[in-house]
């Protein structure tokens, strides 16, 4: 456990030059200035490989599937050189009591110093009974593990914002990590799943420089600082007013903007449009589908993936409601007019009476 990250590189047959190249590539990925590569190399060379505990709760394993596709740095590179992954129930060979015992031992040894990665939302309903492993509920497990963590990385939209389990009607009372743990630094790495390089990049950044700058949703600004829309290669079509109206019209074939088809790019902060997926091959919009806004809170409950952003979110019966409002307004209008008519009638009657019986002139007796 006392080996530094540079030691781990050397043990695996990698040169110092390879280590420096890794630092340069990672700082470039993080959009850091070139000088940060040297700072990262200096820091990582002397940093002990930290223990990482990866806990999974209400999740689909999509985030881990995504992370294993990271190409720079790769997950195996991270595991063999940068971190000591002490527990991950999907990747590890051990299972059952042996795995639990290994986790407890790793946590005890690195108590107060390990990085806790949480994947999935945590159900609070039924006393936490909706997610139980090794006889312990997810919420109790998380509370205990968080006590010994130096920092928590909430991986995926479920852990960061509740995600799918949190979506209405939220039958299990699912909540994000930040609603349970309030006394530990938490980095939200949202996305369904998050971009692999974002997950691994955040881990490396934390090892090198500590807590990254976070946005107001607790996400690293380096990856979540811009909207998809602002970095989208189809943005010029939006500005020109060229849109695909259906998924198979001329606009779609020409690769025009997908805003009308419900793309949530304008309100979604993520790096899909710049880092892309599968080694920079493509991302959903490039493949012809609008952004679902998966890295944003409550993205399942935004009125529908294919409803344009400016459209009303509610699925209310517009004809009936607005027709009822028109009818109600007309009834009130008739009432107001009837009241005005009766006043007009009273004023006319009074006027007619005054004409037929003029009041005596006040000055008639004075002369």
């Amino acid at each position, binding site marked *: 456990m006392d080996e530094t990250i540079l030691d781990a590189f050397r043990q695996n047959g990698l040169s110092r030059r390879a280590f420096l190249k890794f630092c340069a590539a990672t700082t470039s990925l993080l959009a850091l200035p070139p000088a940060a590569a040297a700072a990262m190399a200096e820091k990582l060379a002397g940093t002990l490989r930290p223990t990482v505990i990866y806990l999974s709760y209400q999740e689909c394993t999509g985030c881990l599937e995504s992370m294993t596709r990271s190409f720079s740095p790769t997950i195996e590179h991270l595991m063999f050189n940068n971190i000591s992954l002490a527990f991950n129930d999907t990747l590890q060979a051990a299972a059952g009591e042996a795995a639990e015992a290994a986790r407890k031992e790793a946590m005890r040894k690195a108590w107060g110093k390990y990085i806790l990665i949480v994947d999935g939302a945590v159900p609070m309903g039924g006393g936490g009974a909706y997610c139980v492993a090794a006889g312990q509920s997810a919420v109790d497990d998380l509370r205990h593990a968080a006590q010994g963590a130096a920092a928590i990385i909430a991986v995926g939209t479920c852990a960061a914002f509740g995600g799918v389990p949190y979506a209405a009607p939220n039958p299990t009372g699912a909540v994000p990590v930040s609603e349970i743990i309030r006394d530990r630094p938490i980095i939200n790495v949202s996305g369904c799943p998050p971009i692999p390089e974002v997950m691994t990049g955040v881990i490396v950044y934390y090892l090198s420089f500590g807590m990254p700058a976070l946005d107001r949703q607790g996400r690293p600004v380096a990856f979540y600082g811009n909207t998809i829309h602002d970095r989208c290669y189809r943005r010029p079509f939006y500005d020109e007013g060229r849109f695909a109206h259906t998924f198979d019209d001329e606009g779609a074939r020409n690769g025009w903007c997908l805003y009308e088809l419900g793309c949530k790019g304008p309100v979604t902060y993520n790096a899909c449009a710049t880092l892309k997926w599968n080694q920079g091959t493509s991302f959903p919009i490039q493949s012809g589908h609008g952004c679902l806004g998966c890295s944003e809170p409550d993205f399942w409950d935004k009125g529908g993936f294919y409803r344009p952003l400016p459209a009303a979110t509610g699925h209310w019966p517009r004809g009936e409601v607005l027709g009822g409002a028109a009818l109600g*307004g007309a009834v009130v209008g008739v009432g107001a007019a009837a009241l005005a008519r009766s006043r007009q009638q009273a004023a006319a009657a009074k006027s007619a009476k005054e004409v037929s019986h003029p009041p005596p002139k006040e000055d008639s007796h004075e002369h």
Partner: protein
Amino acid sequence: MSTEADLLDFARGPALEAALVILVFGMFWRLVAVLALRRSRDLSEPRVRHAWLWGVRTIFTRMWPRREFRPRILHWEAVSYLFHFALAVVIVGLVPHILLIRDITGLSWPGLPTGVITFAAGVALISLLALLAHRATHPVLRRISNFDDYFSWLLVFAPLLTGLMAYYHLGGPYEDLLAVHMLSAELLLAWLPFSKLAHTVLFLFSRGVTGTIYSRRGAQT
């Protein structure tokens, strides 16, 4: 989960519904209440046949000042036209607006490039500021202006300004500015039937009725 996301959801959901209901309810209230008012019978001999046709004509003839008044008001009339035209371009030309209208009414038409919309919004804002300055400095106009005039001005100015700010990310994140833009426009819709802004609909009827009555009596309208 987050306040700013909730604000945008509120603007796109309950606030939009409430604003539309108030708009439709209020507009029908005002319109029916005015149209159903008692009118005294005109016992004089009609000077023209089908006076209502002259009423329809008046709707259009009053769109430009009469020759006698032109030297005095033509320039402000032009500014007013500029504002109304620019506002119309912004409202019916911007694609997000068209999508909202399509969502509510089912009607749709092609949009304009955002550069054109930005220019029109700039023209509308500048002309609105000029019209406000005119209102505040003109001795007569100032005296006949009340809260309705200034508040209505503010509610027209605010969505234009916040819309531009949202598009160019000025003063905050897009989703916050978009929420504020939508809420300000919804406030405008709810306020419209009960203010002088109701002229958007009522001008047709007031001009038509005035034109009909006067032409029946042989007056030029």
